């Protein structure tokens, strides 16, 4: 943990920002909300009505427009003990991803493939709604979603992880931990995962011909072959009609439906995840997809920029 903190500080200068807004605009608040104390009381007593009064004016309590993402911050290589790592902040939501490679025997049914094992952890630290103990439903559903996206998008070909067919392969443990939970977990997890995979550098492994034991050469490392860049965009439906992008935790708890669209650079969809809730027409989904493709470009630019800046020596 000490390592981590030092890294965070030392690489602080590399942080880059992406987002729609360049300046903080002042908000045309409804007149009765001008008194701060009143607004706070109103927010606690009638959260739904509070949000409605903002959405009527086409803005949100934090000053964003309906289709605006929060400022996204990315930092890579923050964990020096991991093979690859990334820290992502979307507004207050903070997610960290560490990648650890281990050697194993390939699966029997696919001797030329390796393993990718994602896991999303929501510790009690990140929000009061999570309790200690075994992972809750939210964390399990997120882990499954990340695993599905890895599978669907083929971000890494599992064949690339094979070292000796039927004998030796890599297992990539992708541990994603949420440090601060303020909504839009899945988007943050996906960015963290993708950036960490791009950052990961696995050591070279050779098999000793005589002893058949693997020999790891820690000096020579090479990065993974990333085939696709899946990036997600999450939306919620408010009051069965209004669509909002990048929800905060509070907005999520008041929503009637959530949708996560994952796209890759060829504008193909890797996932359209909508676990129930309000029904939506094809056109509405189309709007989500268009927004997701523009978001993909923004995030892609951010990741490239951060990786570039990490490479250039100071």
């Amino acid at each position, binding site marked *: 943990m000490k390592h981590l903190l030092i890294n965070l500080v030392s690489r602080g200068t590399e942080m880059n920002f992406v987002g729609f807004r360049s300046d903080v605009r002042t908000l045309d608040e409804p007149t009765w909300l001008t008194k701060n104390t009143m607004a706070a009381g109103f927010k606690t007593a009638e959260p739904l009505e509070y949000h409605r009064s903002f959405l009527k004016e086409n803005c949100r309590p934090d000053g964003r427009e309906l289709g605006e993402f929060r400022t996204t911050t990315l930092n890579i290589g923050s964990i020096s003990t991991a093979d690859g790592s990334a820290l992502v902040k979307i507004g207050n939501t903070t997610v960290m991803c560490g990648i650890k490679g281990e050697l194993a025997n390939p699966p029997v049914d696919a001797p030329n493939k390796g393993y990718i094992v994602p896991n999303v952890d929501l510790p009690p630290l990140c929000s009061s709604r999570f309790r200690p103990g075994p992972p809750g*439903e939210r964390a*399990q*559903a997120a*882990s*499954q*979603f990340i*695993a*599905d996206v890895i*599978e*669907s*998008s*083929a971000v890494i070909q599992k064949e690339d992880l094979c070292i000796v067919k039927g004998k030796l392969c890599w297992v990539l443990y992708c541990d994603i931990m949420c440090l601060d939970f303020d909504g839009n977990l899945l988007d943050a997890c996906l960015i963290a995962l993708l950036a960490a995979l791009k950052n990961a550098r696995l050591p070279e492994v050779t098999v000793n011909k005589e002893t058949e034991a693997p020999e790891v050469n820690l000096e020579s490392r090479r990065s993974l072959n990333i085939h*696709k860049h899946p990036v997600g965009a999450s939306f919620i439906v408010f009051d069965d009609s209004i669509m909002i992008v990048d929800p905060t935790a509070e907005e999520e708890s008041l929503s*009637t*439906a959530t*949708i996560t669209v994952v796209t*890759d650079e060829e*504008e*193909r*969809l*890797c*996932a*359209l*995840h*909508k*676990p*129930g*809730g*309000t*029904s*939506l*027409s*094809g056109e509405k*989904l*189309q709007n989500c*997809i268009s927004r997701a493709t523009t978001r993909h470009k923004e995030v892609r630019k951010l990741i490239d920029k951060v990786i570039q800046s990490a490479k250039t020596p100071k």
Partner: protein
Amino acid sequence: MPSSLSAQNKNKRRQFPATVFWFSLGIVMEVCGSSSPTLREFGCEQNLLSRPDGSSSFVQGDTSVLAGVYGPAEVKVSKEIYDRATLEVVMQPKVGLPTVRERAREQCVRETCKASLLSTLHPRSSLTLVLQVVHDDGSLLSCFLNSACMALMDAGLPMSCLFAGVTCAIDTDGQVITDPNAAQEKESRALMTFAIDSTERRVMMSSTRGSFTVHELQQCIAVSQKASDKIFQFYRDSVRRRYSKTL
């Protein structure tokens, strides 16, 4: 297969006084554009278990799911919601314990049921939906959804609309196959499951696997909406059959 199914059904009727109804849906072949989508043989039986307040078994080809609903019943204080009912969905695989995959599916089914149930009419009570896989031969999630809908209806819980689950697979030639079996699922390039609501035929739930273009998605949604009409008609026919004795 249909003949053996109906033979089974006669035996069952002797055991349970409940109504049994098998219905053949797929006559028209091949899906593309305007022609109607093909679905496998459907079967449904309501009110077949004696303990739950509502139960159903739903069969799509060789895929079969058994569902039971308990509620509105007493709720644990920790799970009590003051203005609506607490809905829990439990999914039991055929063998072994439920895994993370089941958890994710539970979430999908639960949120879909929640949107269609008028849970504010039974505040501070619990609704429990138990789904048991009997046999998995593809399109399992859609079968879960369909059996859940029939079980909720059987329990007489107030609902604002019904929902139908439809699975579409896109094969390597880019053809859309509705209600695929396990072999077709395995060969497919992409797989999508939608829950379609009965009032406006819109998408309530979507769960996908594999990558696909936007056009393919819209095509699959359109096909699912068409297929859902058949499923809703099937729901109506089987409920009508069930009530035929008390008409």
